[in-house]
């Protein structure tokens, strides 16, 4: 579930704009593309694989409007989650439970539906505000040119500037030709590799690259893996009435 956010954060990745540092330019590009110019809706499917629990597929309808930090997610699968949903408008974030037909306020450090995702994961914050280029022993930015399989990439390392980000250290592998993020490693505060993400498939919509297939590998608890598939992406102006409790209730029927 936590990966939903990451999937959505990395929804679009066009070429990086130039900035004062090469690493910053990568972060800046991600920020620029995270902030969607128009509204969007899509179907999102998450396939979670856990050795002890088997495979679980979570499906959802997803609506997003960045002009007022609004999004709505209505769960479509699995059966026991179907009809539940989440709505955020500005600073307000609610969780809707179909069984009780109630909306509940979600705190930023509250677990979402018993998963490892928290309210704070759904906040819209810029990477450039959260992370800065990490420097090596020589004081230089940690960026290098590498090959990821057959693809020439930049490997760059960033560290958190603030203390309320989920991963204090990240390493990005971005294509050298068009800046697309292909791989990302996330490290804990103690420097342990916690998660590796691969962005496997892209599509071009409205002149922008969108990663439609991501794989997140849990490096801490081996065997856990989440695959995110995004489909039926529609970029269009969404009506104000969509980002309301009434819509979420209607979608849950």
């Amino acid at each position: 579930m936590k990966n939903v956010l990451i999937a959505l954060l990395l929804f679009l990745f066009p070429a990086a704009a130039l900035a004062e540092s090469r690493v910053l330019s990568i972060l800046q590009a991600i920020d620029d593309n995270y902030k969607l110019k128009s509204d969007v809706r899509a179907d999102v499917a998450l396939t979670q694989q856990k050795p002890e629990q088997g495979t679980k597929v979570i499906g959802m309808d997803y609506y997003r409007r960045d002009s007022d930090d609004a999004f709505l997610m209505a769960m479509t699968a699995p059966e026991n989650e179907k009809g539940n949903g989440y709505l955020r408008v500005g600073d307000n974030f609610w969780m809707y439970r179909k069984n009780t037909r109630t909306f509940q306020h979600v705190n930023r450090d509250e677990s979402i539906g018993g998963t490892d995702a928290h309210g704070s994961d759904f906040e819209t914050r810029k990477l450039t505000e959260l992370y800065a280029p990490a420097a090596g022993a020589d004081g230089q930015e940690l960026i290098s040119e590498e090959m990821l399989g057959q693809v020439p990439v930049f490997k760059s390392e960033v560290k958190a500037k603030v203390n309320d980000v989920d991963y204090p250290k990240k390493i990005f592998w971005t294509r050298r030709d068009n800046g697309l993020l292909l791989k990302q490693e996330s490290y804990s505060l103690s420097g342990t590799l916690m998660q590796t993400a691969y962005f496997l498939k892209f599509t071009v919509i409205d002149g922008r690259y969108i990663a439609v297939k991501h794989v997140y590998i849990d490096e801490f608890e081996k065997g856990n893996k989440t695959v995110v598939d995004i489909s039926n992406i529609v970029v269009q102006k969404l009506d104000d009435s969509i980002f309301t409790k009434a819509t979420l209730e209607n979608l849950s029927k």
Partner: protein
Amino acid sequence: MTLLLRLSLRNLLRQKRRNVLLGTAMALGVMILIVANSFSHGISDIMFNKIMRWVTGHVSVRFNEKGGIMREIFRDRERARAALEGEPDVEQVDESIGYFMRAIGNGKSDNIILVGVNTGDGIDEKTRKEVEESFRLVEGRWEDLRDPAIENPAIVSLEKARTLNVKKNDVLRVRFRNMFAQDQAARLTVVGIMKNDNIFMQPVIFVELSNTKAMLGFRPYETASLSLKVANPQKTARALADRIHDRLKPGLAFISGEAANGPRRHGVTVVGYKSDDASKQKLSEKLKLTAGTLEAALKSDGVILPQPLAEALALSPGEAFGLSFDRKFEATKADLTFKVSAVCRSDDGLGDDTVLMNDDKFYDAYYENLPANSGAAFTPGKGSAWAPLFSPEWILLDRTANTDDYKKKYMEMSKKKWKGTTVDVSTMYETASDILKLEGVLNLITLSAVMVLFFIILLGVVNTLRMTIRERTREIGTVRAIGMQQADVKRLFVLETFFLTLFASAAGTLAGFAAMAGLSRLTFHLQDNPFGMLFVNGHLHFVPTFLGVAGNNLLISAIAVVTAYFPARRAARLSPAKALRHFE
């Protein structure tokens, strides 16, 4: 009177078998009442002094930064401790830390609760013994928790050790989100395995407090919520909590520093404005903006500069400025950057150098870099019409009377989305008043059951007395004929019942204590049973109290005497002539 006493005692012995049987029934009732009463007191004792005392302390001072349930941190440890000074009833102050984590053992993973325990600093021998008795080690030593040569030594419950497939000297890996929602991983070395009858303690893993704080991201001058062990808590806890609450009243939060825009520099006082809807409404009425929009000014990152300051620094909305100020606990200055959202007039008592900042943004800067001026009086705002709109150093929650109020308070708190640190002072008698209710209900159930038993016994008493009176009618006639007054006859029978009850109560009390001693020796193995928490080290726990035992004895005696009064009065009212003629 002495004669009456002697006669009544002699009469008791005259009908030995009948009185022994009746007395045995009474003693049985007294015994049940005392055992049951002591057991319900024992449950309360376990809940309060063996569970709640470790979970919340007798009195707790709880901190929640930015409304975060798991973010229990207060940035100025010494200031929090100062509120507890000069309190002789406070026997011990602990930092209370319990954190949910995912642990991976040998091929197995499970959720755990990591609890920080202080087994070293400032711990007296009595407390150390209490810890060791409450959480018995089946393997390892408590001292090893403090061994600096071992990486994060941990004591694991027996059940969790089985689930995670670990034993002593094995390494556990844990992952968790620390207080600031950062993913963190750590390695724990199992130095001991403990056994506890409380099923709720089975997911617990103990780690020394200093190691726990380091893992969770505390700095040396920061503290977690405090739990206090106090002397005679039932009498002192509430008053103590009230006094601590009074001492923790916050002042206004502000940062004295220097704002800079390139070469331009100016001394400023930064204050947070409250961002709840009502305060924002009042603020929007008071603010006279000269540049920028109200919408931008009231956003979560809103920063409003007074016109003279904006001019001095040559700043306009959308432009960034630096803020530097001395920090209370760090040698280096804090250097932060903010963006101007709006500029306002300052001729309304706001001050030419007062920067207003949305408390969401303000508290981030304030708590993370506690300014050197922290704790000093905020003079610019004193008496100002703006002062009620400024953010306090923390939000002191009202005291509550019972668990229901306490729950309501926290439900309210989750709705209000506080931006500052909330401070809540409570006693376990408020947070766990339901346990006191449970004890009351248990006592009531016991009393009702025993009263039913006694009703049956008292029917026997009445019947016995009626039979005695009938059998002794001629004797009553004789003693009345030789001069005994009606009142004395009545007293004689009442005294007989009283002595019977007295001896039965004494025997019942002794039997009750013997039963408790016997039952306490039985060992129950209830590791996986929720009722296990009602036992101490697998044994039933009885706490007889003087008031409880004496009260029960008095109650039984009073009921028996009242019951005996009416047949005794009937006996006294017999005519001596009729009584002497009585023949069976």
